[in-house]
């Protein structure tokens, strides 16, 4: 184990630092992310690849370090996203619930303030989200949709690139514990 590994890999949950945010942040940030997804691609078409609500779920889950909180945040954001899509309610909801839960679980073991790890996690969870959605659409709804793997990998990379500075900005919104 190198020193770098030691830094990334936490000794255990006891060392994990739980970040706190103002209650308004839990409403406003997801709302901005969803509005961005609803409004911005209308004018800048190529930005439609950005899955900001997913990045917000990943960020809050990583920083809260509580699987229950991560799952609940994922559920709420996912259901709102479902409401604004043509899919039945629950498709994005279940996918984001799992993302929230697992990202919070991972955050208990790693130093999630490391930018490289944030990049990798964002990349991984985007792919996980896309695959989960595809599995649910085929398995639960019987929809014959295709999983475009090369496109998903490119989108995952681009989302991960955006995630790093976005997480740094959102770090500023954290409330310091007294």
């Amino acid at each position: 184990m190198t020193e770098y590994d030691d830094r990334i890999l936490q000794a255990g949950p006891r060392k994990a630092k739980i970040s706190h945010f103002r209650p308004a942040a839990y409403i406003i940030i997801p709302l901005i992310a969803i509005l961005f997804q609803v409004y911005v691609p209308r004018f800048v078409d190529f930005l439609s690849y950005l899955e900001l609500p997913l990045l917000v779920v990943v960020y809050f889950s990583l920083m809260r370090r509580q699987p229950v909180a991560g799952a609940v945040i994922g559920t709420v954001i996912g259901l709102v996203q479902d409401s604004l899509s043509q899919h039945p309610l629950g498709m994005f909801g279940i996918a984001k619930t799992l993302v929230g839960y697992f990202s919070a679980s991972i955050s208990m073991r790693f130093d999630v303030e490391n930018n490289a790890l944030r990049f990798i996690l964002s990349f991984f969870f985007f792919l996980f989200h896309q695959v989960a959605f595809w599995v649910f659409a085929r398995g639960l709804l019987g929809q014959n949709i295709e999983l475009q793997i090369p496109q998903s990998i490119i989108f995952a990379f681009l989302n991960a690139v955006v995630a790093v500075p976005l997480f740094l900005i959102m770090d500023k919104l954290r409330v310091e514990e007294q």
Partner: protein
Amino acid sequence: METFLSRYRNLSVLLALIVGQLLLLAYQVKAREDVRLIRLWAVTAVTPLARGIEWVRGGTGGFFSGYIFLRDVQSENMRLRQELGQMKLRNQFLTAELSTADRAKALLEFRSRIPSKTLPARVIGTGTGANSRVVFVDRGSNDGVKRGMAAITPEGIVGKVVAAYPMASLVQLITEQGSVAGVISQKNHVRGTLKGQGTPNCIVDYVQNEDKLEPGEWFYTSGADRIYPRGLPVGQVKMVREGRGGKEVVVAPSAVTGSVEEMLIVIDGVQGLIPEPETPASPQISILPPPPPIAGEEQRVAPSAAGEAAGANQTDADKLREKYRRIGESQGVEIGSPGPLADFNRNPPPPSAQQPAPNSTAQPGAQTPVAPRTPQGTQPPSAPKPQEPRKQ
């Protein structure tokens, strides 16, 4: 039990959330109904914000163009540069306005032209999800929009309404994965089902390999899906090739090429007709002007010209018959009558001295007039006054 739940609290909550959402999904799938309340809340919460953002965007543009730039104009030192910048911005603004006006005008013209009753709608947002191909429009159930209505533009079909809320509706674009439309090709009347792929192009399924289809051929709505009225343009065949289960046809939708800003919601569809394919313009037959008369040839064409003036035909057979008639007449022999034969090896008399046939104005096919039989060597009838050769 309590110990189990507290021990596996995280997992229990996760399972509860997932099972809850699975039940929600199962209810929607089984009852074929939407959980309207949740959607209504979300859409009602988001669409006014989207409208607000749109309003702020327009207002900000107006503020900058109407106030900031006006102040800059008053600055003497920067006047020329500012004026230039202002003109450029104004030009961009007017170009955008003109484009909007053109689109609106085209939409109005199209609306008045089509028999279906339609409602103009404006896009105010897009659906959620990466690379989503659904859009929100500013017309909802309060305006009479219902689920399943078609959305069209003058360029072709855009999609269909998949959800109608009081103040907004969700339109699934034809390029979205899972969207379908019944189509028919314009030229060969090949029927098929247009399917969105989640890419800019669509495919047409259920086209037999035996069906004739060409790249560039237009597809129109067939009306078979009961959503899109028959006769609306869909797109052009981009690629066609034979496949295992049928032809593989890729169609480039004509209306969903870039970002769709405005559209018409078909409130009451009327089936139209598939327009006939435009036949290529008939090739212009180029006929050169007549060649200029050549001095030496004037005399050569004189007999035929004389004959033409007399109403004779100008075919080679006519000319030959006229020649033999003149030879026969010069020898006092009537062509075609029993009796002595004329010596056709002798040259006919020159046309100037030739008497035209008495009934040379006879129609083609009429029998050659019978000349009075005269003995050999008698003088032919006096030649009439020679005719001037007709110049072309």
